[in-house]
């Protein structure tokens, strides 16, 4: 019992945020329920982002009824690679990544050859809600396939590594690079076995990582060090993430971004209930940082000011950057 109490006090002193605090003080306080569809539905997110001039993977088309499945060919056109996603999918389920054509068929990223009918069946499954949260009817989204930047080659196993930034009221407060592993089947979700690597907000240099709630410094598949990697175009990422507040109106979000080798930083999706493992990856608690931003907001509100994306990024980089 005393042991628990000691742990409790120590975690509190470090400002580690627990689920209860995240829910009570941030998710419930800053995220209006009515705005959830914006982040839950990837199509709406994408449309909003395009309107706001934020970079996203290009959308080739949407299929929302069984009848429209016939239009699949038309949507794909002559393209060799594309991604089919459920608009309201969770945990990366139901995503089909086509990397190439093979004769009359398609080749997925893992090398499996699938026929046109199989793709149609996949789309049909998406429409019936097989992959959506709660089994609602869903829409299928066909979009640009992201090719991860070469920089990640050495520290990731298959899949697309992404960058998760927690954004509080437009202020990025913590960032993490998520690297797929063999165990996560190329997916970048931490609970599926991906690695989370902390990122210095000021410089974009990676720190040590977390894997299954423990702290690591090497990728388990490639055994390359995950720390000390300079992420290119870091300020671009920061601005992109900070701008997502204006995009969706939710005050506490996790922004998932990728670095495409041709198009640079792109927004992949937003998350209204970002996980807490990012704290382990950064070896730092969220609470103190969140409080610093809240204090800043209060001060600004007092003066009746508002900060632009650039000002906000500069503010957090100065405050939270590791020197």
């Amino acid at each position, binding site marked *: 019992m005393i042991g*628990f109490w000691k*742990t*409790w006090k*120590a*975690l*509190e002193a*470090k400002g*580690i945020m*627990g*689920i*209860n*605090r995240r829910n*009570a*003080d941030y998710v419930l*306080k800053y995220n209006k329920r009515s705005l959830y569809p914006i982040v839950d539905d990837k199509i709406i997110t994408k449309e909003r982002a395009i309107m706001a001039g934020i970079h996203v993977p290009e959308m080739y088309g949407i299929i929302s009824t069984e009848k429209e499945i016939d239009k699949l060919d038309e949507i794909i056109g002559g393209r060799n690679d594309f991604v089919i996603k459920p608009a309201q999918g*969770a*945990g990366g*389920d139901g995503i089909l990544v086509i990397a190439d054509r093979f004769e009359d068929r398609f080749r997925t990223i893992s090398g499996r050859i699938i026929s046109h009918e199989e793709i149609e*069946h996949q789309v049909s*499954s998406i429409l*019936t*809600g*097989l992959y959506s949260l709660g*089994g609602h009817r869903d829409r299928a989204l066909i979009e640009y396939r992201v090719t991860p930047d070469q920089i990640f080659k050495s520290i990731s196993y298959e899949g697309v590594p992404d960058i998760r930034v927690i954004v509080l009221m437009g202020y990025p407060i913590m960032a993490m690079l998520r690297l797929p592993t063999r165990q996560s089947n190329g997916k970048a979700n931490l*609970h*599926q076995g991906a690695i989370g690597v902390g990122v210095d907000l000021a410089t974009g240099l990676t720190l040590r990582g*977390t894997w299954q*709630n*423990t*702290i690591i410094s090497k990728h388990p598949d490639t055994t390359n060090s995950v720390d000390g990697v300079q992420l290119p175009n870091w300020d671009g990422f920061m601005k992109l993430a900070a701008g997502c507040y204006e995009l969706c109106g939710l005050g506490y979000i996790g922004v998932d971004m990728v670095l495409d080798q041709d198009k640079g930083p792109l927004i992949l999706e937003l998350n209204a209930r970002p996980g807490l493992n990012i*704290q*382990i990856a950064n*070896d730092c608690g969220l609470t103190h940082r969140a409080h610093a931003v809240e204090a800043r907001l209060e001060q600004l509100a007092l003066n009746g000011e508002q900060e632009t994306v650039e000002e906000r990024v500069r503010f957090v980089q100065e405050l939270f950057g590791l020197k």
Partner: protein
Amino acid sequence: MRSITLHLKILITVLVTLGIAITAYQIFVLGIPVTEDETDDLWNIDAKVEFVANTKDPVKIQMFVPPLSHDYVSLNESFISNNYGVSVNRVDGNRKVTWSARRATGNQTLYYRLVLTKRYSGDKPKIKGSVFRDSIAIEGPEKIAAEALLEPIRQHSADIETFVTEAIKRVNNLSDDNVKLLLAGDTSTSNKARITELLLSIAHVPVEKLHTIRLTTDQPQTPELWLRSFNGKDWLYFNPDNGEQGLPTDRLTWWIGDENLVSVEGGKKATVNFTLNNSEMNAIRLAKLTDANTDDHFLGYSLYGLPLQTQQTFMIMVMIPIGVLVILILRNLVGLETLGTFTPVLIALAFRETQLGFGIVLFTIITALGLSLRSYLEHLKLQMLPRLSVVLTFVVVLIAAISLFSHKLGLERGLSVALFPMVILTMTIERLSITWEERGSGHAMKVAIGTLFAASLAHLIMSVPELTYFVFTFPAVLLILVGFMLAMGRYRGYRLTELMRFKAFLKDETK
């Protein structure tokens, strides 16, 4: 945000205060017992009246029956008599039953039966009595003896209480010549009481004779005589044999006055036998029974006012918030992962029918088989609704099969599986399967065990009889629960499992 917090605090305070106040009112003012074990004695008194009827005359037999003052409540009263007309009337604070018949011959037996209990709550009614009476006129040596006796009594007493006690003591001093003279050789209790009354009347102190029945089983009874006197505020009771003051609690007043218990016209040899036995009954149920006979209608507004069948349903229903509270604590304070939020509560309800151990076994078997079917269906790439329908049907067939097998094997318990909510099982299988796919078998097992653990705990707590009784009797407790739940809504401390999860931080620090 601050105003919301204040609002919440006020709301919690109001709810908790209200809950405590109502419960306290029920316990302390209405006197509703806190546990079910509090039982009240239920007395069954039979008075058997026997007499020999004269052949020709009409028969009229009168007997006193208890007036049922504020101390006792009658639950049932019956007069068992063939061919007799029965009427009950009140005379001077007594109740008298009159049996009458035009013609009766030979030995007659009549019964009077009373089921009563101590009154369980309620205010004392206003009592009144006279504080003055005229002297009974006596002459000659008796007068001198009485006055001689009275003199020391006056000297040794301060008020009515001590006066009466002293008088009784003197009358019981049989070696005293004055007493001998007054009793005239008859030392029966009734005679002593008569002399005591005489003495007291000279001093203008009124006394009444009280005939009581002792509420005790297995001994034959005759009405016991007591004296009582009014001191302006309360009735004071005295034992005419030794001057002891205070009526023991097990005495029931049958009638007051000088008359005999029973009087017969047109008959002879009337005797009355009392038989008592007692049984225990749950205090609340008793109160419900007495409800019709009392002025306290508080129970009419409680859940006990519902029909019995509905009550049983409500007994289960009021425990659901308790189960939910268990889940709330397990999830938000401990951090246990369960399938869905309230699925464990529903499973816990199902355990009521199957018993815990058997319920867990059944749940595990059905879920395991359902999961294997689900994973097979996964290959067929079915849409969600048809797939769920197949799983549900499979679950029904499985339940039927288990029932059949266990019946054939003579395990009647297996039949209770039918009450396992099938839809819940189906949804559990579906959810578990999705968890399995998304987060791996290890996590699915963890969640399944968490769910079973939460369900078992909820079941165990929900089936504590004392708790059920308490919540059912004092539903205001639920307000306190709501207060706690509201407070939990703002709880932002760590969950127990998070302390483990984030241990990585601290290990690093100690290095």
